[in-house]
Structures are given as structure tokens and as C-alpha cells.
């Protein structure tokens, strides 16, 4: 019998090692798996695990969640599209002190590189970023380019992960997931790109209770489903308009 419903977050996060790449869902604060991140911070703090690479659209805000993970000092590199937010001071300080590396990726390239990993694609050519500073490797050398149908494209490679932490709405014991509104964002894409995917849900339902037409992430992409209490998502990361 398949039962991906896991009692505790700690159980779902067993066996982490140095230098892992960890994807974290969410855009702004919608879809951020805060409980899983808190659990990860606990596991990391209780161990000597270090050298982590984090993949997220942003680079954390406030003091907890992704920012809390950065504060452990165990994150070597962040791959994201938009680190700068009104309250991203934890990342900002680490970055300015040279304590965390940043790979800045146009958001569509980030999403497509994650998708490519999940879909078994070795690389893809895209016009996004051509002729810009982001069409370069970390060492400053130019990424490979090619003219396709009269338009210049840049070669981009997949981003694979050892672990993905995502936030869903409902899940069943096979790992099928639904999401809520724009909290869906990177969840389904990251779920497919990681060797192990842990999804938090606000409701575990019986097998067959999810409408098959409405399942967004089929269970094949999910390793663990952990129930967490429902809590309204809080706003953050933007400048308040007076």
C-alpha cells in the first residue's frame, strides 16, 4: 500500500546531507511552505549540514522561513530571480558581506530550467536574456548562443534538486495535490524536478476524494504529504502604499 502521508516534518526531512540543492516554492509570500522551512531550519541547526544551494523565486523576507534558513549560515548559494524585497535584509546583509553566492536568473528561465529538469530535457535555447549581462556564466564567459528562425537564443541548462519543499492545499495518500489561488506558482514545477518532494497541505483527504479533473500535481511527483494547520497567508515583501 502506498501511504505518502507522513506524520511529522522531521520524518519527511530525514537523511539530508551536505551540499544538497533544495527548491522552495512560493512567490512573494503566497505558496511559501513556512512550516516545512521552519522544520528544515530545525534539522539543519541540529546537524552540521552545510553548503546548501537554495532555489526560490525570491531570497527570503523578514526573519523567519527562508530568511531564517539563510541565518543558519549553512546556505552557500541562492538561485533566484528577485532577491530584493522591501524586507529582504537578511539576504541583503549576507550578500553584501560575501557570505552567500547569488545566481540571478530571469524568472521564466528559472521556471523553464526547473521544468526541464523534471521533464528530462538536457537544455534549451531561449531568446530571454540574449544580449544582456545574464547571458553569461558565473565566471563571466558568454553562454552559448544560436540563431534559430532568424532570432538569437541563449542555451540554458536544467536545475535539478535533491529536495523540494512546496505548499499545497489538499492532498491524499498517493500524493495527489491541489493548490489555492496564486499560491500554486512554482509548486507543480518544482515537485517534478526534485528527487524528493515534501508537500505541506491544509487537508489530507481520502483517496478518491479529489476530483481527478482538478488534481494539479499527480502523486508520482510527490514523496511526502504533511498536514499543517490552516493559517491565513500573511502579506509581506512589498512597499506599503500610503
Amino acid at each position: 500500500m502506498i501511504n505518502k502521508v507522513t506524520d511529522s516534518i522531521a520524518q519527511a526531512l530525514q537523511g539530508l546531507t551536505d551540499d544538497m540543492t533544495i527548491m522552495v516554492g512560493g512567490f512573494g509570500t503566497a505558496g511559501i511552505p513556512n512550516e516545512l522551512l521552519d522544520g528544515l531550519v530545525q534539522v539543519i541547526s541540529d546537524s552540521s549540514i552545510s553548503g546548501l544551494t537554495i532555489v526560490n523565486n525570491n531570497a527570503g523576507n523578514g526573519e523567519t522561513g527562508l530568511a531564517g534558513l539563510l541565518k543558519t549560515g549553512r546556505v552557500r548559494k541562492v538561485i533566484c530571480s528577485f532577491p530584493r524585497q522591501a524586507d529582504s535584509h537578511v539576504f541583503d546583509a549576507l550578500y553584501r558581506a560575501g557570505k552567500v553566492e547569488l545566481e540571478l536568473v530571469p524568472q521564466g528561465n528559472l521556471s523553464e530550467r526547473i521544468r526541464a529538469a523534471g521533464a528530462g530535457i538536457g537544455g534549451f535555447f531561449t531568446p530571454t536574456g540574449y544580449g544582456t549581462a545574464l547571458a553569461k556564466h558565473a565566471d563571466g564567459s558568454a553562454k552559448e548562443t544560436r540563431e534559430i528562425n532568424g532570432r538569437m537564443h541563449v542555451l540554458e541548462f536544467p536545475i535539478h534538486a535533491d529536495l523540494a519543499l512546496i505548499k499545497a492545499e489538499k492532498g491524499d495518500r498517493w500524493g495527489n495535490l491541489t493548490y489555492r489561488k496564486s499560491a500554486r506558482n512554482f509548486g507543480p514545477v518544482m515537485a517534478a524536478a526534485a528527487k524528493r518532494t515534501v508537500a505541506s497541505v491544509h487537508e489530507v483527504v481520502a483517496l478518491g476524494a479529489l476530483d481527478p479533473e482538478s488534481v494539479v500535481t499527480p502523486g508520482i511527483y510527490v514523496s511526502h504529504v504533511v498536514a499543517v494547520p490552516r493559517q491565513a497567508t500573511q502579506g509581506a515583501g512589498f512597499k506599503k502604499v500610503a
Partner: protein
Amino acid sequence: MTYTPRTKDQIAARVAQDMPDGAYVNLGIGMPTLVANHLPQGLEIILHSENGILGMGPAPDKAHEDFDLINAGKQPVTLLPGGSYFHHNDSFAMMRGGHLDICVLGAFQVSERGDLANWHTGEANAIPAVGGAMDLAVGAKQTWVMMDLLTKQGQSKVVRACTYPLTGLACVKRIYTDLATLEVTEHGLQLVDLVAGLSHADLEALVGLTIQA
């Protein structure tokens, strides 16, 4: 020359006036979000948000704010009847695959051949952030820019060649500013309109480039 620059809301209204019925539109963060307040009555213009929304509606009142339903600027929005949610890869397929009719972006600089610089000032201490700007700039059917024509120091932001880091090459079709609206054509900049009191010659003097009448 005596003229009054358009306010941000007046530029937004000017942009909105050019949107055709049925257009799928992405409004970038910052000044372009104001365009949503000026969409022509009676037309159906469908707003896309990069975080997975088509048919985005206005901000809710305080009591109905739901931070699982936010725009690209992370602020709460609503969904119109007929709207839909989808994941990031679908959203960026819409942006990158040429499905959006128009995107409206803010800018630091636009060159006379339509190069766009809007993501990074290039300052040493600045933390770079790009988001979906590069995807929109080259992926939408038309990229429109909305900005003040001059910097606070009075320098034109429409330039011969961008000095700020580029977002995309030759991607801007129209430039809506507080003083004039310009079209980027194969033959250079073309004047669309001017604020009252500003002459074509005055505008060329401010910009320092040839602008076809």
C-alpha cells in the same frame, strides 16, 4: 516653452486609451500597474499576472484581502468572473511564447532602436533583481514602456544607446511619457503625440535625437 507634464495617472490613461478590446495584457510592477485604473469602459481587456493569474481584477477592500491571491508586486488583488489560475511554467509560456498582446513596463532608459534597460542601475552596491522583465520584454507581441521622459537631473531617458545594463534588445515598440508618446520604427523614433505647449523642436532638443514628425 510653457507646458504641463502629464501626471502618472494621465500617462496611465494615455496608455490605456491604445488598448484594443480583447487584448491580453501584462502590466509590470511600479507605474504600469496604474493603467489598470484607466482601462476603457465597455472593453474587455484581460490582465495577466506572472504568478499565475489571467483575468486579474482590482484590489479588494481591506476586509477581503487574501494573500494567496496577489499580483506580481505581491499586493492583494481579485479574480474576475472567467479568470483562471495556473502554475508558473504555464504563466511564463504565455509570456515567452508570444501569447500576450501587450506588456507595459517601466524603464530607466530606452534606446532609439528599442533596446530596454529597466532591471539594474549597475551601481556597485545595488542588489540586482530581474524577475520577469527579460521574459516579458522579448516575449510579448508588443512591449510598451511607460516612464517620465527626463530624469530628475533633466537628462533624457530616451537615448541613442543605453548606458544601464540591458533587459532586452530592440524590443520596445512604444514609449509613453509625461511629455510625449513615441513609436520605435525601423527608421527611428516617430512622434505620436506631444503635451500642449511643447513643440516638436523643443522635444528634439530635450531628447537630443531626431524624432520624425
